[in-house]
């Protein structure tokens, strides 16, 4: 347990801690760029330099172990000048057109330059390559803005287990990107957008589709409706300076109406539908396996996370049949809106324009998938992320913080409450199990019957077992059966579950996978800054509020919702795509 002094503050840290860890403990801020707590400490950017008494050179605090009796200074002339030089050098190679950059105001490099008091760039010189990649529906990359911090590389390979990005070439030719600096659509990228979420600058960002929405709103022939995912209402406020996690449902609805949307709906409506369908599908598969002794694909994996589906198509094409054929809530919504709702309001599918607001870039990709047109036209026209909606509200000059509260439209606007936990890791599984349990036993699932516990030694994977007792006659074959389930978030964790199944180490019936670590709720953050502080803590801060809305709703089980009856069921199912063309 070394004790050291940082700027005259004494602090004791655990063995193995770095100077940066110690300074955070002591409440002293050291700027960082390439560092990501628990994910990456590579000492690459040198922004975190500090002076250690007796050391010849300045040291990178993110990688330097804290030593007993060390005397560290974080704010000397030498440190300030060195950090300034480091950032000046980054800026000299950076395509700094801040005024037109979509990350302006939310850019860590910009913030750092201001924080360090940089007034001019004293190192004019050569610039790196400018390659623009807008080959995918989800993301845009601009290599000239990249500062080579490698955060994207770390999340893509370690957290997602995809490894689509890596430094290519060397010197001024060097770019961080797919193999041989190709475009993302030629590699195994799953378009999850984790890279964009951690990029400190505007080098990888979500594809901006605001103008497409404005065009639809300006078109008098179009009936433009919007669905908002549960994660958005707790994230949007942050774009307007409200504390993270503030629920702004009412203001968000007002803002959407002022933007000109004809109706505002809650994706929760179809989340209920997903749960119902998914629970039923699980039971059907179980019945086929247990009673009809047919060969069915078990375990069944959840299907609401499009990055996960693409991951399976690239890396495990042999388990495609195992993924539930239910559409995700977003796509169910689009399909229902352009069929059931269209009929109700007497419009043609092609005159309805469906916008979704989602926490996730992969949803942009999902909406563009060729099979997502069960209404005859594209079911969801444009997907905006939280950041984009925030910008759109700003463009319209709306004073968000002072808006009055408004309510979502019904009938597509009420939900059971079961769907509110949907966005959290474990939420889909829990909700679907509850539904299945109720179908089988006619009773609600007693809370104590479902024990979800972490698996020893496997972070990011949890499992649970549920013994079915008191089955109604139609489902009596399930009496006494124990259903094993698992929950994984982050694709590298999903891989662990698949491998456990393959090796026979585990035997699950139902597995929930969410592409993003922590589930969708983690992705609702409009800003990237959390990643400097540590994702875990940020997740904890958000969680209670995400679950908060669960209580006031009326019906618990989505099956008991009157408005769900009568919705066309074929709209709820997706087709299984043929194997992806390229395996790598």
């Amino acid at each position, binding site marked *: 347990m070394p004790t050291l002094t940082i700027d005259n503050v004494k602090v004791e840290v655990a063995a193995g801690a770095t100077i940066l860890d110690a300074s955070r403990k002591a409440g002293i801020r050291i700027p960082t760029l390439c560092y990501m707590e628990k994910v990456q400490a590579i000492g690459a950017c040198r922004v975190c330099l500090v002076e250690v008494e007796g050391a010849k050179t300045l040291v990178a605090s993110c990688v330097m172990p804290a030593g007993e009796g060390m005397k560290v200074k974080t704010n000397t002339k030498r440190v300030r000048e060195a950090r300034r030089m480091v950032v000046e050098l980054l800026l000299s190679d950076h395509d700094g057109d801040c005024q037109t950059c979509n990350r302006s105001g939310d850019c860590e490099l910009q913030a750092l330059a201001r924080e360090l008091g940089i007034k001019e760039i004293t190192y004019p010189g050569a610039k790196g390559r400018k390659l623009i990649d807008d080959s995918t529906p989800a993301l845009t990359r601009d290599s000239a803005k990249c500062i080579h911090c490698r955060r994207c590389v770390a999340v893509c*390979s370690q957290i997602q287990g*995809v*490894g*689509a*990005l*890596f*430094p*290519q*070439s*060397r010197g001024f030719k060097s770019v961080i*990107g*797919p*193999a*041989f*600096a190709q475009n993302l659509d030629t*590699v*195994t990228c799953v378009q999850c957008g984790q890279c964009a979420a951690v990029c400190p600058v505007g080098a990888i960002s979500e594809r901006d589709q605001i103008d497409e929405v404005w065009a639809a709103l300006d078109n008098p022939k179009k009936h433009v409706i919007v669905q908002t995912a549960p994660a958005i209402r707790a994230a949007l406020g942050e774009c307007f300076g409200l504390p993270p996690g503030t629920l702004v449902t009412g203001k968000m609805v007002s803002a959407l109406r002022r933007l000109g949307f004809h109706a505002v709906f809650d994706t929760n409506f179809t989340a209920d539908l997903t749960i119902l369908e998914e629970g039923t599908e699980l039971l059907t598969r179980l019945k086929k396996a247990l009673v009809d002794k047919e060969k069915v694909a078990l375990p069944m994996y959840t299907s609401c996370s499009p990055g996960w589906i693409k991951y399976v198509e690239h890396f495990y094409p042999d388990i495609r049949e195992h993924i539930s054929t239910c559409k995700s809530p977003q796509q169910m919504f689009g399909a229902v809106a352009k069929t059931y709702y269209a009929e109700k309001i007497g419009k043609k599918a092609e005159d309805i324009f469906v916008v979704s607001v989602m926490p996730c870039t992969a949803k942009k990709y999902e909406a563009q998938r060729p099979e997502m047109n069960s209404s005859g036209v594209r079911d969801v026209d444009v997907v905006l992320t939280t950041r984009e909606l925030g910008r759109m509200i700003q463009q319209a000059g709306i004073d968000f913080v002072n808006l009055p509260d408004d309510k979502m439209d019904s009938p597509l606007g009420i939900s059971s409450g079961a769907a509110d936990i949907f966005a959290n890791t474990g939420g889909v599984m829990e909700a679907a199990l509850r539904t299945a349990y109720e179908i089988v036993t006619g009773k609600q699932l007693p809370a104590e019957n479902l024990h979800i516990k972490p698996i020893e030694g496997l972070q990011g994977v949890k499992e649970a077992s549920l013994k079915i007792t008191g089955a109604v006659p139609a489902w009596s074959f399930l009496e006494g059966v124990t259903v094993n389930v698992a929950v994984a978030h982050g694709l590298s964790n999903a891989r662990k579950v698949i491998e456990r199944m393959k090796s026979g180490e585990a035997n699950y019936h139902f597995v929930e996978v969410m592409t993003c670590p922590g589930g969708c709720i983690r992705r609702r953050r409009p800003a990237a800054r959390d990643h400097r502080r540590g994702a875990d803590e940020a997740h904890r801060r958000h969680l209670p509020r995400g679950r908060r809305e669960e209580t006031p709703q009326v019906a618990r089980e989505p099956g008991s919702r009157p408005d769900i009856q009568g919705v066309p069921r074929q709209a709820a199912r997706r087709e299984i795509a043929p194997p992806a063309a390229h395996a*790598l």
Partner: protein
Amino acid sequence: MAVENACACGEKLSEEELLAKLDEVLLEYKDKPGALIPVLQIAQGMLGYLPETALKRIALGLNKPYSEVAGVVSFYAFFSTSPRGKNVIRVCLGTACYVRGGKNVLDALKHQLKIDVGETTKDHLFSLEVARCFGACGLAPTIAINDKVYKRVRPTKVGEILEQYKEAAKQGEAHG
């Protein structure tokens, strides 16, 4: 794409046969740490260059992302992803050679061959690369063609050197 290449014994192997050999190498190196660079060297030695098919096989065989394999290949000038010419010219730009005009020798070669560093002439006779120090600094500037090192090279003399290889190629054709 047929890869024309000969292994040390002079017998010609088809691309399939070469890739099958590569798979054997991959099995051997699979669980060794730091295997990527040696495997790439072996593969380039066998195939003459590193085609995409080989790189993807290496990525799968060593369980590494393709982006990482490509990143390593594109980092080191030694690795080539396009077929190299019959004769590989490497111009030393190490400190001694640089100071003694290695850059001018390189420019002269680029001019004569009408190619840039990393490229191969249309007739597949020459590829041009740069290198760092052949250990002959006392006789700088130096270039190496295949395994032969030329010392105290003058930019005006590179034409003569190239001529020998062109001549040899013609002879070879006449005999072949």
